[in-house]
């Protein structure tokens, strides 16, 4: 290779790993944060579904208990 061209391009190969690392690490950092958000969202959504089911079950149980006590009270009234 022409010695002047060699001098002109002398910094290209040595700097390449740093340039590649700089760009790659930015995208890695952004992707890791995005994955962290997605994981957290999935976990929270799953918890929310479970809690909603639990809440619905509790409300159904409570309303069943309330209707039972009402009918029991009505029965007592009839007997008396």
């Amino acid at each position: 290779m022409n010695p002047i061209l060699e001098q002109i391009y002398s910094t290209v190969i040595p700097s390449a790993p740093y340039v590649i690392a700089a760009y790659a690490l930015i995208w890695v950092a952004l992707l890791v944060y995005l994955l962290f958000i997605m994981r957290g969202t999935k976990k929270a959504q799953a918890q929310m579904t479970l809690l909603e089911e639990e809440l619905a079950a509790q409300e159904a149980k409570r309303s069943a208990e309330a209707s039972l006590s009402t009918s029991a009270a009505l029965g007592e009234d009839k007997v008396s």
Partner: protein
Amino acid sequence: MKEKAREVKLPESGQWPDRIAPVVLGAGIVLSTLGFLLAFLWVGPVYGASVDGVELIGGSMVSQMLLISQKIFYFHMPVAIVSFIALAFAAYYAIRFLMTKEQRFDSCSQVAMEVALLFVICTMITGEMWTRFEWGVWWTWEPRLTTYLILMLIVIAYFILRNAVDEPERSATYSAVISIIALIDVPICFMVTRLIPSSIHPVVLREGGMTADMGICLAVCLLGLLCVGFALYRARFNQLRLSQRVEAMKQTLEEQQ
């Protein structure tokens, strides 16, 4: 009291920013990829030290070394600007929290600080890569690097303090003060290279400004990364609000049992 609460419009998940967030994220990915391609395929090269002769390359006479490491600049400066903008938002919401004591503003400030930390780390990574190659060292106590390191430490301190204080309102108040302090460091970071003449950190204007192609590429990268930052902010805010709702629901169930 109720009237006062009604006057304060609270940020919430599912509002209009969330409806545009997926489109903004897509635009951010496209623009930053385009910026990356422009930086390497379209923008003219930057030259450094002189060589022992002149050579004709691509129709122009070249007598200096080609500086590929300068290509880091097209992402380094935009990520730094996005970190400054995120810090400004964090401080804005911190001030609103201090004024209203409304926890929602504290949540917004916390998410903005997280996004700021992410972009501060990106700025540090890109800066370190350039410094290692151009200056031959991983670190030097240069004014810009030092002030930016202080900024990063303040942001890290914000999260340490946040987790260290148990009482939510006290934790939010201290955190709000720290995010305002972080914002105060932003203009110092930005201006230090101009105020201290011995600073060796490159300054665009001092280096002779930018050519039109460099400016266009930088603007595309900046716009792309701003879009990515915004989309990440909204995604994290939605996740945080969902987690807060889960906690509230858990508490309701515990009270009922």
